[in-house]
């Protein structure tokens, strides 16, 4: 490990061995798998975090990271993932929902039964509204079933914003003009208000994913979107959250995690299902184990 004088600004140089150690740690801790081919990407983000923490060397930074001092793991993960939320984020999972998951769910259910979908954490509502929009635009059977969508978050301010359903251009950047025109109404300051019917179709509630008592109020979901939150928890909390979510699903129900998360690294409770568009996790139909 040495430092280099780079045009007057000092930047820490990171060796290949250090990158290997870092990648091993990151994979074990989060499931994020980074290869040598992403070396530039890794170096840039590591250098940013080393500078931000005032660490004099990679070794010093790695010690700080392993101890999770000042929630450094959270800051690091944030630097490796996209944190802002927007409509149709990770839409490959929405495609998987309509191409694979819902078909399996409705085949196993009596006709006329309700399909229950949960977005937790739902933040300011982009995800549950995206689920509703995607279903209406992409699932031909949408009129044949009762569908309930619940959005939950620990942050009541976010829930209020979700219920208001007002978004700026940036949140809508992945939506086509046709969809924006169909489901949003322009309001002041260049913002957009989502259709009242859609606002009323989603139930927003407060829930803490790691609190068993809180989560005991939620049962019988067919599909849960729980994306980009478990990665921030410690091992015990992640397992607790996984067990809570397990109890909230119907047998055979599915859970979608964020792209950088892996349930297999958290808990053996779920089966891994590989579909063309996404890897999702399933609560076994009959769980004797």
């Amino acid at each position, binding site marked *: 490990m040495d430092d280099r004088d780079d045009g007057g600004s000092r930047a820490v140089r990171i060796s290949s*061995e250090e990158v290997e150690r870092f990648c091993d740690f990151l994979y074990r801790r989060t499931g994020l798998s980074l290869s040598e081919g992403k070396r530039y990407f890794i170096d840039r983000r590591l250098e940013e975090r080393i500078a931000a923490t005032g660490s004099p060397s990679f070794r010093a930074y790695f010690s700080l990271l392993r101890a999770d001092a000042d929630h450094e793991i959270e800051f690091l993960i944030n630097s490796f993932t996209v944190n802002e939320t927007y409509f149709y984020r990770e839409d490959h999972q929405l495609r998987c929902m309509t191409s694979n998951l819902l078909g399996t769910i409705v085949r196993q259910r009596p006709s006329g039964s309700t399909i229950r979908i949960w977005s937790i954490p739902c933040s300011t509502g982009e995800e549950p509204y995206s689920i509703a929009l995607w279903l209406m635009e992409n699932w031909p059977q949408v009129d044949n079933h009762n*569908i309930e969508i619940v959005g939950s978050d620990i942050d009541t301010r976010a829930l209020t914003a979700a219920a208001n359903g007002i978004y700026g251009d940036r949140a809508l950047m992945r939506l086509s003009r046709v969809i924006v025109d169909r489901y949003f109404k322009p309001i002041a300051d260049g913002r957009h208000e989502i259709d009242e019917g859609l606002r009323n179709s989603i139930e927003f509630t407060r829930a803490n994913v790691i609190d068993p008592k809180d989560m005991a109020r939620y049962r019988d979901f067919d599909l849960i979107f729980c994306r980009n939150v478990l990665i921030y928890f410690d091992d015990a909390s992640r397992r607790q959250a996984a067990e809570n979510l397990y109890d909230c699903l119907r047998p055979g129900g599915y859970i979608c995690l964020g792209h950088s998360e892996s349930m297999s690294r958290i808990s053996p409770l779920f089966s891994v299902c590989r579909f063309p568009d996404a890897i999702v996790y399933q609560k076994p139909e009959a769980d*004797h184990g």
Partner: protein
Amino acid sequence: MPLIRGRRGSVAPGATPPPVLDDPDPESRWAAARALAGQADAVPELAAALRHETVPRVREAILTSLMRIGGSASAEAIVPCLRSEDAGLRAAAIEALQALPSAIAPMMAQLFSDPETDVRLLATELARNMKASDATRLLCDLIEHEPHPNVCAAAIEVLAEVGTPEALPVLERCSVRFALTPFLPFAISMAIARISGAEG
């Protein structure tokens, strides 16, 4: 917008009272184990259940509850699982104990001097989540006295990720001691390269 039919009040009412850990029904035992998460006074009850539980899912819930409680009492409840005949339980116990690094640290010397090779080998994984200086000291002490090459190899693999330069002379001595064991000198050279490279 009638296509998605929201239904107010779809949230279920409060949970039913938690059952007990020796219930014949695994669903009830699962619920009982989960209800005890974070309750420090439940450690003896969870520890007793862990000794007898055979359903993997319920065992996972017991371990999660002990992890959530934490502390030395939880760690002491889990450590006996390292001697289990059941590989699944041993692996689950390692995962649980890795989440309790400060609680397990005082027990490491005893684990590393355990007469069972498998226990010493498994215990090396527990150092992985410890502070680098503590993990290096513990693993180096083990390697200096460890007669079994597989235990040394396991310790070296952990050192390759978390070790500090203080491990280098210990690794070099180990390489000499096990020079005729085909895989160890190679594993040691890899670990030395990583630790040295990390130091620059």
